[in-house]
């Protein structure tokens, strides 16, 4: 079996927000919607203070609470571990948003007017609407660029290795801080990094088994 996962090297991340913008461009995300974020802060106490940068998104948990609580089956988990939302089934109850301990989901309330209200959609936005309709009134989240993965696999490419089969945030990262690969493959680069550098996920005490690991 395959279980896609991501490793983020915090020592390499420079907080440039390229991953945030790449995600927004890749999925033509509407205004005010971000599927990933960059959190920049400090930790420790004076004089031992250090700056920390976390690139965060859906953790695509192996035991996702959001899938369990969804009353309609709109939130689903694929066999490869990717958690996604079927917007045509979502009723907008937001139970998944409440149940996600990582607050990694977004509710799109927009009116579909795009980035320039009252002026219609730009040609670029029209293309985006055709590819990703982004229905208002439903919940959205990171999907690990499953469209790119599926298309890449169909061409015989390897996600995490070949650009055309990898998530947009990974391929755009200028410092290669984001790695993507199969967590079930003991020889994958992501697994090697997790083992060698003791990668950790957020809030593992919730037993969600996140597929996002951070290297410090």
């Amino acid at each position, binding site marked *: 079996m395959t279980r896609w996962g991501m490793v983020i090297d915090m020592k390499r991340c420079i907080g440039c927000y390229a991953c945030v913008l790449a995600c927004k461009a890749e999925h033509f995300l509407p205004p005010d919607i*971000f599927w990933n*974020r*960059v*959190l*920049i*802060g400090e*930790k*420790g106490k004076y004089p031992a203070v250090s700056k*920390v940068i*976390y690139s*965060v998104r859906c953790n695509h948990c192996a035991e996702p*609470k959001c*899938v*369990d*609580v*969804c*009353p*309609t*089956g*709109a939130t689903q988990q694929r066999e490869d571990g990717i958690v996604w939302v079927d917007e045509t*089934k*979502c*009723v*907008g*109850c*937001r*139970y998944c*948003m*409440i*149940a*996600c*301990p*990582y*607050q*990694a*989901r*977004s*509710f799109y*309330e927009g009116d579909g007017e795009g980035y320039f209200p009252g002026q219609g959609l730009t040609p670029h936005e029209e293309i985006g609407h055709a590819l990703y309709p982004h229905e*208002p*009134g*439903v919940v959205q989240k990171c999907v690990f660029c499953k469209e790119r993965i599926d298309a890449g696999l169909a061409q015989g490419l390897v996600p995490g290795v070949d650009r055309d089969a990898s998530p947009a945030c990974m391929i755009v990262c200028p410092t290669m801080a984001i790695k993507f690969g199969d967590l079930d493959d003991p020889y994958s680069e992501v697994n090697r990094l997790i083992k060698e550098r003791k990668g950790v996920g*957020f*809030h593992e005490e*919730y*037993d969600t088994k996140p597929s996002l690991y951070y290297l410090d």
Partner: protein
Amino acid sequence: MIQSKPWEFMVKYTPQRDWIEGHGIMVAFAIFFGGIAGGLYLASLYYDSTVGMFVAWLLAMATGLTDMAHLSKPRRFWRMLLRVKSSWITRGFLFITLFIGAAAIQLAIRQWAPGATAAETVFKVFAGIFAFGVAIYSGFVVGFVSGIKLWNSAIVPILFVVAGVAGGLGILMLASQGESAARVLDIARGCFYVLAGYAVFTAIYLWVSTYENTNARDSVTRILTGEVSRVFWLVVVVVGMVLPLGLIAPYAFNAVVSPAAFIIAGACILVGGIGLRYVILKAGVYSPLVPSE
């Protein structure tokens, strides 16, 4: 994602907002209506009150409607019946639907076929079971949320049932005005005992939550001294508990019927009930995303 500064995500407890702010306030009303609908029906079974049963049926409809009002895609509501194996919202939706059906049949038998006691008893049993489900499911809905420790407690479903029965008895006390003095006093005394138990239970819930972990302790601090403390002390404690207990006790235990006192007490219990749901939803917080060290 909630409107919050990125820095706050990392280091602070961030309150949930989706189920309390804006349209989310409907969730508090749905939980309230569900609790008192179930509680009122169970209390009405005990006191054999037709009016109470009918009002409970209406309140169950209100629960479904407020639940629907919270949805941004209400036309797809039928899809909410599809995940009974894992989702407490689905289970609650089923309880409401089944209760409305069973209670309607039971009330119809009572009204138009008063001789069919066996049939009515059967539907009373079914409706009673579903009423308990309606009263308790919202406790499990919030109790399943592991990220918000104030909610993620085994006490919450029981607290919601007790609060629902207290609210139900409050309505029953209002509805029983004009009936015999003995019956009114009987209901008032029952209401007093349940209300006292509800007050003790609320205190135990908050006290136990402070020992759960820092997340739940932060929520309790918000309730007792923080941003929702005014609603808690004024609406939940004073209006919802102290005032009705003080109004009921002097009359109920001296065998004196005071319609004014009982009506005010009943209304106060309901106001306190909605306050309790608001406070619990509003005080729910997530732990900081990033470990502190």
